[in-house]
């Protein structure tokens, strides 16, 4: 994987493949996309993530050409694409329902787009065989879509949308119809195909795990706006708002008032019964400002005795334990009443759990474990 150094979005001279410029889309009174600006670069695997109704599908349909923006500009490779019908765009889409033509065989489904392009018979045959090999569907070329399994249909849909070698491939919940195990295998397959073809992928999903796995960058959307665009690790470790922190993964949010405590360090007064918390933040906060401290459960240590080293400690009792196999999540009720989740990895087999229900415990974390957020 050579993705470690792939970051065209950090290059100030980089030219985006797709550019949304203050795009707004309204359906009647309903604002589906609200003044959205976004750049997507070539060879990116870009994920649009959000709850249903957040506008991610509308964005994708605008890119495909099924919807036109109400206002604003949309560019593909430097050209304004507003008003260009879907059949004239170098963009292909893989539909959520796969939309395979039931009256055509797998082979003819894949060849469908190529035949519209005016390629010669030999070229079409060569390209279809290539696509069949890529998606490991050669054996099923003569079958009709209703004669193959869901996972195979998904691969045919992918082969069909890639056959024309589009500049941009749109994937609308491509793995939504597959069961969990198959979905995980397919995610890596998708990444491999994306890398080997060098196509720019834009994927729409509501499954945050899927977005984190496949994408080079993730855009978290809500109510027609993009809340944050960043690499998966930045989205997870440095969310820019409580919404993003809460949407991606599990998080504890502690609300309090800020008091400066040195360079990039702040105290948070959050509970009269507990000591103030110490948190590092590059984002400046003013004295007395209300802030939210977001801490991931796995960054909180749980122990029976009071830890000496830790910057932040709090006392409480175990309310509930969720055993997930690889992990255990402890729900600790602090003396102030708030419940905090702390996670530990079950790295040893057959170990007796040292902490159980109703136990008095201490939770602790370092100053840099949490993210201080103003909204």
């Amino acid at each position, binding site marked *: 994987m050579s993705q470690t150094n792939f970051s065209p979005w950090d290059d100030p001279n980089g030219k985006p493949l797709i550019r949304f410029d203050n795009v707004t889309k309204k359906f009647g009174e309903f604002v589906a996309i609200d003044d959205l600006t976004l750049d997507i670069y070539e060879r990116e695997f870009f994920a649009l993530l959000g709850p249903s109704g957040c506008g991610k599908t509308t964005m994708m349909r605008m890119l*495909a*050409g*099924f919807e036109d923006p109400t206002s604003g500009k949309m560019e593909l490779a430097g050209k304004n694409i507003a008003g260009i*019908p*879907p*059949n004239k765009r170098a*963009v*292909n*889409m893989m*539909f*959520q*329902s796969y*939309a*395979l*033509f*039931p*009256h055509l065989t797998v082979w003819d489904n894949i060849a*469908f*787009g190529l035949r*519209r*392009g005016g390629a010669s018979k030999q070229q079409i045959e060569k390209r279809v065989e290539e696509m069949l090999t890529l998606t490991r569907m050669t054996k099923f070329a003569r079958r009709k879509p*209703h004669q193959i399994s869901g996972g195979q249909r998904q691969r045919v849909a992918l082969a*069909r*949308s890639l056959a*024309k070698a589009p500049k941009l491939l749109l994937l609308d919940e491509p793995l939504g119809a597959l069961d969990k195990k198959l979905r995980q295998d397919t995610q890596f397959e998708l990444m491999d195909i994306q890398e080997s073809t060098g196509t720019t992928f834009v994927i729409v999903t509501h499954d945050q795990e899927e977005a984190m796995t496949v994408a080079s960058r993730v855009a978290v959307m809500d109510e027609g706006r993009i809340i944050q665009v960043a690499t998966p690790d930045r989205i997870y470790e440095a969310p820019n708002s409580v919404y993003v922190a809460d949407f991606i993964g599990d998080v504890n949010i502690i609300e309090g008032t800020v008091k400066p405590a040195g360079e990039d360090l702040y105290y948070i007064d959050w509970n009269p019964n507990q000591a103030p918390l110490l948190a590092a933040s590059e984002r400046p906060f003013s004295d007395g400002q209300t802030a939210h401290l977001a801490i991931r459960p796995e960054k909180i240590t749980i122990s029976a005795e009071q830890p000496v080293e830790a910057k932040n400690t709090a006392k409480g009792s175990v309310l509930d334990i969720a055993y997930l196999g690889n992990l255990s999540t402890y729900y600790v009720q602090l003396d102030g009443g708030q419940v905090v989740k702390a996670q530990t990895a079950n790295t040893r087999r057959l170990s007796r759990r040292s902490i159980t229900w109703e136990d008095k415990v201490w939770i602790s974390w370092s100053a840099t474990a949490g993210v201080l957020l103003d909204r």
Partner: protein
Amino acid sequence: MNIRRFILIAVPYAWLLALFFIPFFIVFKISLSDLALAIPPYSPTVKDGIFNMLSAFDFENFTFLASDDLYWKAYLSSLKIALISTIFAVIVGYPMAYGMARAPDEWRPTLMMLVILPFWTSFLIRVYAWVGILSNEGLLNQLLLWLGLIDAPLTIMNTTTAVYIGIVYTYLPFMILPIYAALDRLDESLIEAAEDLGCSRTKAFWLVTVPLSRNGIIAGCFLVFIPALGEFVIPSLLGGSGTLMIGKVLFEEFFNNRDWPVASAVAVVLLLILIVPITLFQRNQQRQAEADT
């Protein structure tokens, strides 16, 4: 368990036997006998004894049908009229079905109602209404004259054109409903996929919508073609004496000439002709059922 199953299967078969096979055998038996001045107007009958009756049977009436060119001309003309009417019914019915399937959800029940509504009045009255529309002094000619599009009334009544209009009008719902059912099931994203892969709207219609509604079109064609072939009321009311259709010939043989044996022979041959499309139709239905599972 087995008895229950037997009864379940027996009921439709008994129905078929009583209402189709027995009447058909009676008609077939009459077609093998000769015209007689008696009641019933043919001989031999069962009264002459079974053996005498069976030995007197012959295929004279069928050879007569083949020798007189009136009959095969009537058959051919019926086939032609039924075929052309079916084609027109597709041309008129498909856009209507397409429009219904594309209409907003709240409109669909109303549109469906409008298609079915004519069945609530008598078929005969509706055909008579066309006389009032198509005749020389009829509504259509009055309108065209008033608009100044024509100087003299058009002769539509008592021509084959009137028969086409009548048949297409009468059987249109049978064309619209199966096509509508096929189009209604069509997934909108298939059209979008076709457009996404480089089809224009028109091209997507021909490459995706039409092939996927094929079964509906075929079902509609049979539902129009089969009754149109033996149609009697429409050609006799709208077609006048100039239109030759086998249904009319059958009626005249039976009621005007009182030649029951020849009329029966005409009916038997008509049924044999119809068996071909009916078999094809059933095979299509079966294949469609298989494709759906």
